[in-house]
């Protein structure tokens, strides 16, 4: 564990990612206290006389949107949306993927084949289009969006876990456990699962990046989180017609999405290098 801590804290890039994640988590947790204004408040003086959004200024640090609302406050509350979906959707995806991957990898046989063929099938669908079709069929809410993302994102995790479980299942210590009479449930829980934890940790971290991007894209296309609930994607969706005259309305939420996704990718990649025993001791 201390090895892991040194790896991440000693790596400037990973440290940067960790900082961005920490700031976003704090913003999401304390949004009410941190945001200068309520996210839905429309300011009479938040628009120019012609009714155009205000650029960043002393009163509205990041400017206002097309309804005269404070962009910074909406971004801070939007962090909550992104993180809730990031954690719920990705958590569900990891759980589904791990469960199916372990089951298929340990049982093999026709159940394993059936699960993995189904995984292959899901790999053939373009994730975004499938999510759009699902989101268009169910009327979207925060939880439906999270569910839809989980339904398309579990696939890769299932494959990785499957591959690792099949190689673990052939190892001697598993055979030993079986020889002393441990049942399959106990073997999976006590002997296989602990070995999968590093992999799951890496994919859970990387998966948040994918999830954040998918949520933003769905919201941008109008099938994700619906206004007035602020999400970084739907802020851009609402304001995109103004982008030529008010580019900050695309720029700031865009940078927020990029930074959060990038940070989870950077931390996940560092974790992968640190936790992969075959990489240990190698030069970077």
């Amino acid at each position, binding site marked *: 564990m201390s090895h892991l801590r040194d790896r991440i804290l000693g790596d400037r*890039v990973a440290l940067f990612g960790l900082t961005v994640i920490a700031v976003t988590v704090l913003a999401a947790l304390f949004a009410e206290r941190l945001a200068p204004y309520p996210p839905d408040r429309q300011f009479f003086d938040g628009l120019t006389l012609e009714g155009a959004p205000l650029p960043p200024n002393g009163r509205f640090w990041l400017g206002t949107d097309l309804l005269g609302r404070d962009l910074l406050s909406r971004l801070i509350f939007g962090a909550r949306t992104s993180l809730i979906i990031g954690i719920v959707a990705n958590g569900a995806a990891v759980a589904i993927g791990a469960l199916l991957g372990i089951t298929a990898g340990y049982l093999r046989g026709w159940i394993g084949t059936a699960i993995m*063929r*189904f995984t*292959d*099938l899901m790999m*053939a*669908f*373009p*994730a*975004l*289009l*499938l999510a*759009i*079709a*699902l989101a*268009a*069929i169910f009327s979207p809410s925060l939880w439906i969006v999270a569910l839809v993302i989980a339904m398309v994102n579990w696939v890769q995790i299932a494959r990785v876990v499957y591959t690792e479980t099949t190689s673990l299942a052939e190892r001697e210590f598993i055979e030993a456990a079986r020889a002393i009479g441990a049942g399959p449930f106990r073997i999976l829980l006590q002997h296989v699962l602990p070995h999968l934890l590093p992999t799951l940790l890496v994919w859970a971290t990387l998966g948040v*990046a994918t999830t954040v*991007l998918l949520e*933003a*894209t769905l919201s*941008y*296309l*109008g*099938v994700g989180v619906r206004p007035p609930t602020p999400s970084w*994607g739907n802020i*851009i969706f609402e304001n*995109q017609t103004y*982008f*030529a005259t008010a*580019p900050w309305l*695309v*720029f700031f*939420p*865009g940078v927020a*999405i*990029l930074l959060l*996704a*990038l940070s989870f*990718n*950077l931390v996940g*990649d560092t974790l992968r290098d640190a936790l992969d025993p075959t990489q240990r001791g190698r*030069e*970077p």
Partner: protein
Amino acid sequence: MIGYIARRLGQAVFILIGISLVTYVLVYLIPADPVRQIAGRSATPETVESIRRQLGLDLPLWQQYLRYLGDLLQGDLGRSYIQKTEVATLIASRLPATLELMAGAILLELLIGLSAGIYAASRRGRPADRAIMVASFAAVSAPQFVVGILLLYVFAVQLGWFPIGGYGTLWHLVLPALTLGLLGGGWYARMMRSAMIEVLRQDYIVTARAKGAGRFRILFVHALRNAALPVVAMVGLDIGIFMSGAVVVESVYGWPGIGQLAWQAIQRVDIPIIVGVTIVAAVAIVLGNLLADLVAPFIDPRIKFRR
């Protein structure tokens, strides 16, 4: 080898049948009743009943599915709820634009990714290498709609170098293709870098160096071919990313491809079009994967015709 190809083809057919099943379930899950949509509100019960029979909705589910599969095999993807046109006709008229966009994107992602990857590998461990790797992560972490809108803002609105969206000339293609190509470029930079580093470790490179070959010659004459071919052979796997990306990029730039068609269908909840585009995209992905699997062993003899 023939066994390998037959197996791969069999798997592809299996997946295609699975795709038809999943999309059928999707269509069946739609809460909106298509009969009501076609008949309108003021229709008499007799009209509703006759339309239901016409559409075959009175048959048992498995017969409905077989009819659906039969229609799919004949290239019939159903009718749009709103435009009343054949979905297949709509998609066919939009497909060339999307293929053009993909060709541009593949060209740009290889150009960006391979050159960045080669350079990073030749500067391994130095600041330039680190910078390229962080940049490649940024490229794969950037939401495409934001990249698209910002490129449009800087290069079309502010600088006026390119047209503000639309379709027609090669100039119209540059920004949309670049938006897609940057994402792919990020992946290729990483793959190319590790492929290059792997090749540069080989004995024959050491021999070449010992015989006095220059850095440039080693990189581009000896290493590049072996490192780049397997990487380039993976282009077939990109189709999935591009199909999803096309929806976003085409809606940002007003590019008249199947992505924009899907986007317009989303706004009107025209589900037959959304499902139709999903089917076409899934078939394209299956073919792309098949191509990548069949091509790889020919390009890189170390990959055996396995399984």
